[in-house]
């Protein structure tokens, strides 16, 4: 899949860190402002999609993007699993709050809610990127499934 012109490539290279940062901001402030894991993850995945459109699929795949997305997927779900099981071990029920609840309105507050959103954000990013890669492979005729 070919990329686009020089103007598009330059602008998307400049814009990518800002969109990435915006996505991270939405994930981290999920317990204070609207958003949270799901929209933040979609925004980060959209920034990577912008890069794919601007630079072409082969260029992005040279950095092992597919393998990284699969590994990130597993890391995200293990984070969620770890927080849940932490609730089992220290508290008394699954997913119970075990970290200290700070004061209302500050960033590090709300117990394990923040870290849960981080795990969800990582997983959603990886998931949407994997969907995108799978559809692009199917349409542009590269390897169909990675036989893993």
């Amino acid at each position, binding site marked *: 899949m070919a990329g686009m012109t020089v103007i598009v490539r330059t602008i998307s290279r400049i814009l990518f860190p800002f969109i990435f940062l915006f996505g991270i901001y939405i994930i981290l402030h999920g317990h204070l402002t609207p958003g949270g894991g799901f929209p933040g993850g979609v925004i980060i995945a959209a920034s990577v999609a912008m890069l794919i459109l601007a630079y072409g699929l082969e260029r992005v795949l040279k950095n092992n993007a597919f393998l990284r997305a699969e*590994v990130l*997927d*597993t890391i995200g*779900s*293990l984070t969620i*699993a770890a927080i849940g099981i932490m609730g*089992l071990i220290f508290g008394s029920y*699954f997913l119970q709050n075990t970290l200290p609840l700070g004061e209302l309105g500050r960033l590090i507050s709300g117990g394990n809610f923040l870290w849960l959103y981080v795990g969800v954000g990582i997983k959603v990013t990886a998931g949407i990127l994997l969907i995108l890669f799978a559809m692009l492979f199917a349409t542009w005729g590269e390897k169909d499934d990675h036989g*893993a």
Partner: protein
Amino acid sequence: MIPHAPILVIVLPLFTAFVMPLIGIIAERYHIKYLRELIAIGVMIVVLILAGTIAQEVWNGEVIVYELGGWSPPWGIVLAIDALSTQMALMIAGLGTLVMIYSASYMSRDSGLSYFYTLMLLVISGMMGIVLTGDFFNFYVFLEIMSISSYALVSFRRDALSIEAGIKYLIIGSLGTSFVLLSVVMLYGVVGTLNIADLGAKLATYGGTNVPSVLVLSLALFVTGVMIKVAMVPFHTWLPDAFTAAPTAISALLAGPAAVVGIYWVARLPYLPFGMPVGLILISLGLISMVVGVLMALMQRDFKRMLAYHVISQKGYMVLGIGLGTLGATLGTQGGLFHLLNHSTYKALLFMCAGAVLYQTKSQKFDELGGLGKNMPITALTFLIGALAISGIPPLNGFVSKYIIYLAGFQAGMPWITAIAVVVSGLTLASFMKAFSSVFLGQRPQHLQGTREAPKPMLFSMIVMALICVAIGLLPALGFNIIGPAAEAAKNTSSYISHVLGGT
């Protein structure tokens, strides 16, 4: 009971499913054969043991309430397990283990296996979530988990027929779950809570003559959604295509455990959370499905398609039984639930036999098969046991549950229902005799001369299921230990509500 067994039963397959691609990469790199299969089967056995420990405690009369995150109901999500949920959980765990062992050798010729086991474990986890949860929206989320994974599994092989079946299943199934979502949404708007026990308590005050029309619309949408999932006529059109085109291990999984969750909600429908009379709807849909299913099955020339139509017919029996149970025949609910137990065993067994034949001969049409009884004796014997069980011949388990449903027809004062049910049983027997004779007896075609028996893991699952069929047939008390408390618990809504809301 192991302290956190309820949540572990749901969470263990879920997180193993997420780790499965990583396990696949490790298995490829270090060349460990069968690593994925062994881990999947191991997880299923652990789930089965945990479900057994839950069952021990629930059968002492308690309703186990497990609050997620420590938030007490009705604000938090709870898992509420009573005897009905326990029966379903045991069936899902047991049948899931056997189907997983079967699919370990059935799918060994395919590629992309780590995704297959991911999806299988997700389906199992979704089903466990549906039967164990006590929160209505949580039920919708787990229903979607199970449905989406089964859409992907049906079209796993990505050839033309599988894709067509997958698209049909996806569109009709999504319509069904959207109806369920709309029903949950309307209930939330009227009552303001999502906890099933709380809904039951608050909706009980609305019963009687002046039911608000929003509640009736919500009930109608919910019944439609569940009936689409259970594939009652006239919503059944996705089922024959999906079961024919799916890999047979998936057909066995969908025919056994996935029917379990549908019938679980059909059994809960008349009592919790709505508490409104739906008996006549259930009886009429069940009757029509029974008759249409078996009539369409007689005409089929494809092995798995015929079995799929019989699934519709047998599910009609279960819905009929539960419907009769609401009209005052206490035997009806017991019959319906017992039939669910039996049907899952013999239907999965029949699909496994069809799969074994397909695996060895690569064809599933009656015209191309024949005379395989000498080549595959164990498959033929287990198929014969399954065929006799589904037709209701004593001393197998099908006879016990069908007899209870016949009696329930008399007890509810509608003997003509019993007559129709007996006729359908006879037609089922005819259809299976035709299938058995055309596949396993008669002339063997030239190209099937060298067919061998199926691989050992497949035979193991089939033999275990056949033994269960015979055991429950000879000693029905084994089944009644499970069914009796379940049928009681389905009706005993006040105990459920008081256990969940009144603190653990």
